[in-house]
């Protein structure tokens, strides 16, 4: 009996000790006194830590940290960055759970629009100086994209053009083939592919596998074709729903994509290979020695993969891009938006939006800025400079189609792409299925 009692008392004491330990631990990060949101360059100002959720990891994360360093020097707080490609799920969970990050920087704007219309985001006007800075430094098209119900909620950083067809200049030179230009047509692209095939080299390296998001590189093909063949108005119509996915012009874009994917010998590994190869791995075959393929259609970020995999490759000589025939350019960008207007959040948003800060990453490579203050000279080599030029000078620029719609439609598009690649006969049913996903 006595042993039973003492054991019980021991447990109670242990438990209460644990409880006290848990409660007593956080005296250190008490809220700061009177926070000023902007540092005057003197003593580091205490604005607290900022919690940022984004998609970058490895290389890209290092460059982001370099961009944040000047902010770090001015403020005592830390930027706690979480990078995950599963950002949609994580962001949704955190917002639903009442624990949103301070700043989120995803790549699709469907979720951004949903959050903004539900009132979960803080408009840029809540941070002193932020809205005017963004309005001054960013092109109108990007300001409109970040405006929901007339209120500006975010700004774009790290834009990427998706109008780049990467090729191996040496392969082209050996086979006496010229790269295409913006004035070429899609038929010219098919002819070019046939010429290369006849010369004995597989024209295309295509890989659409990407875990749960498999199929997105195919959707890039289709939207680029749609923009060039059908025009910007049809493109916008698809986004806002006035034109259905079952429309003739959309079907035509899919069928043109099919002309590349399903043509005998055009794609390395055929349609099966396309579905099974990861998008990153697909960037390597054209630049291996010996080259396994001639061309690769992937966005501007592919230059990062190529440079990392082949450190000795020289931009412009070993890898270069030509513009997707047609002249219209699609692209994507990461949009930064805030969930509160704390001093730390506001100061970091201001910092990230500035041209000077974005210039830091630009110089490190793999980042195209849409901020008008960043001059083209900041880009490290001709290839990245041309990408930036393509983006900024595009006469017909459109945001990535499925990123713009987001949600269930985006999921449907990705699934549709992999279905279509494995079975060309099911196109009508597939397009009807995508349209059915719109709610």
């Amino acid at each position, binding site marked *: 009996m006595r042993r*039973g009692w003492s054991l*019980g008392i021991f447990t109670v004491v242990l438990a209460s000790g644990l409880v006290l330990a848990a409660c007593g631990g956080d005296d250190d990060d008490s809220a700061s006194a009177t926070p000023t949101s902007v540092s005057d360059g003197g003593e580091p100002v205490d604005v607290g830590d900022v919690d940022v959720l984004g998609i970058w990891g490895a290389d890209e994360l290092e460059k982001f940290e370099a961009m944040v360093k000047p902010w770090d020097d001015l403020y005592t707080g830390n930027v706690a960055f979480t990078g995950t490609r599963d950002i*949609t*799920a994580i962001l*949704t*969970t955190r917002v639903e759970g009442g624990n949103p990050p301070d700043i989120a920087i995803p790549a699709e704007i469907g979720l951004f629009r*949903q959050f903004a219309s539900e009132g979960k985001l803080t408009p840029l006007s809540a941070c002193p100086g932020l809205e005017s800075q963004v309005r001054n430094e960013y092109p109108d098209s990007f300001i409109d994209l970040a405006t929901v119900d007339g209120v500006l909620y975010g700004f774009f950083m790290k834009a990427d053009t998706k109008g780049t067809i990467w090729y191996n200049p040496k392969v082209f030179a050996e086979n006496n083939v010229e790269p295409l230009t913006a004035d070429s047509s899609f038929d010219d692209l098919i002819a070019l592919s046939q010429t290369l095939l006849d010369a004995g080299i597989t024209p295309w390296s295509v890989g659409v*596998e990407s*875990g*749960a*998001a*498999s*199929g997105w590189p195919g959707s890039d093909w289709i939207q680029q074709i749609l923009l060039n063949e059908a025009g910007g108005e049809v493109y916008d119509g698809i986004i806002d729903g006035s034109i259905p996915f079952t429309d003739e012009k959309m079907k035509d874009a899919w069928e043109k994509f099919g002309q590349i994917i399903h043509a005998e010998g055009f794609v390395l*590994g055929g349609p*099966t*290979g396309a*579905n*099974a*190869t990861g998008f990153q*791995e697909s960037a390597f075959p054209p630049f291996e020695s010996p080259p396994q393929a001639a061309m690769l259609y992937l966005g501007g970020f592919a230059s990062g993969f190529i440079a990392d995999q082949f450190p000795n490759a020289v931009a412009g000589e070993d890898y270069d891009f030509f513009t997707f025939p047609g002249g219209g350019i699609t692209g994507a960008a990461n949009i930064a938006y805030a969930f509160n207007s704390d001093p730390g959040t506001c100061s970091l948003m201001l910092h990230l939006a500035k041209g000077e800060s974005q210039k830091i990453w630009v110089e490190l490579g793999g980042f195209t800025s849409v901020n008008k203050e960043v001059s083209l000279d900041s880009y490290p080599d001709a290839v990245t400079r041309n990408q930036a030029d393509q983006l900024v000078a595009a006469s017909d620029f459109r945001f990535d189609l499925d990123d713009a719609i987001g*949600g*269930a439609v985006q*999921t*449907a598009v*990705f*699934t*549709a792409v*992999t*279905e279509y690649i*494995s079975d060309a006969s099911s196109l009508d049913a*597939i397009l009807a*299925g*995508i349209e*059915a*996903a719109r709610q």
Partner: protein
Amino acid sequence: MVGRRWWVPWLWLAPALILVGVFLLYPSIDTFRRSLLDARSQDFVGLDNYRFIIENPQPLVSDTHVALWNNFLWLFVFTALTVPFGLVLAVLTGRVRYEALAKSAIFIPMAISFVAAAVIWRFMYEFNADIGTANAVTTQLGGEPTAWLQDKHSPLSFVTDAGPDNLPGPLQLNNFSLIIVGTWMWTGFAMVVLSAGLKGISSEILEAARVDGGNEWQIFWRIIIPILSPTIVVVATTLVIQALKKFDLVWVMTGGRFDTDVVATLFFKEAFVIRDFGVGAALAVVLLMWVVPVMVISIRRFQFQEETR
């Protein structure tokens, strides 16, 4: 311990009960509630979400029929592969001198996380024969590389180009590729539990059988298996519950794409990617309904065993 201090067992149980209540019971009740509400969990919609699951109006976004059929496939094939493998390995390893080494080697996959196993096998199944072991073996033997995780044709498609027929529904190559990984992981568990049961068989019975002229095969079928049947049922029910719960393997290897979706990956996608909490919750409830009978059988067995002790 009845009597004056009847409350003592409850005191010891209290922390566990509180944790179960907060993290298991409350979410379950809340999930039931959400399955009757709409996508944003605001308006009451009755059984609409369940109707969605039955009707499957949006196969491109979330194919509920595929998920349900795949779960059935996992249920039967995973258990049917793992239990016999475990049993055979238990019997065989019990007869060699290096028994401990063999058992450890087979059990190691259980010690690594599911995600790690999934990553390993993703590399094994790579389409590029320079990276993927499976395709390296296939191409060395003269075949074409196969897209093990993406191929929706019949399992024989890795022998011929596109399979002799396309088998219907869940009987696809990629489902089997995933189930093999599951088996690889859980055979160790089945083997260890069955081996413990095996050691519990008194050697006198086996001796007597051998003296009576039974060969090893007959001993295995007519003596070992009947005596082991309660253990086999325990192992089978655990594996069935595992098969129904399967999420991480499928999620990491294919993201549920290429028609490999199971109910767990589907309700995750519905709730957190498509943000339809109603359907997500309804799927979770369906999964729960599926698991409950298995658990009841399992608990009844356990009680029966306790009583007959």
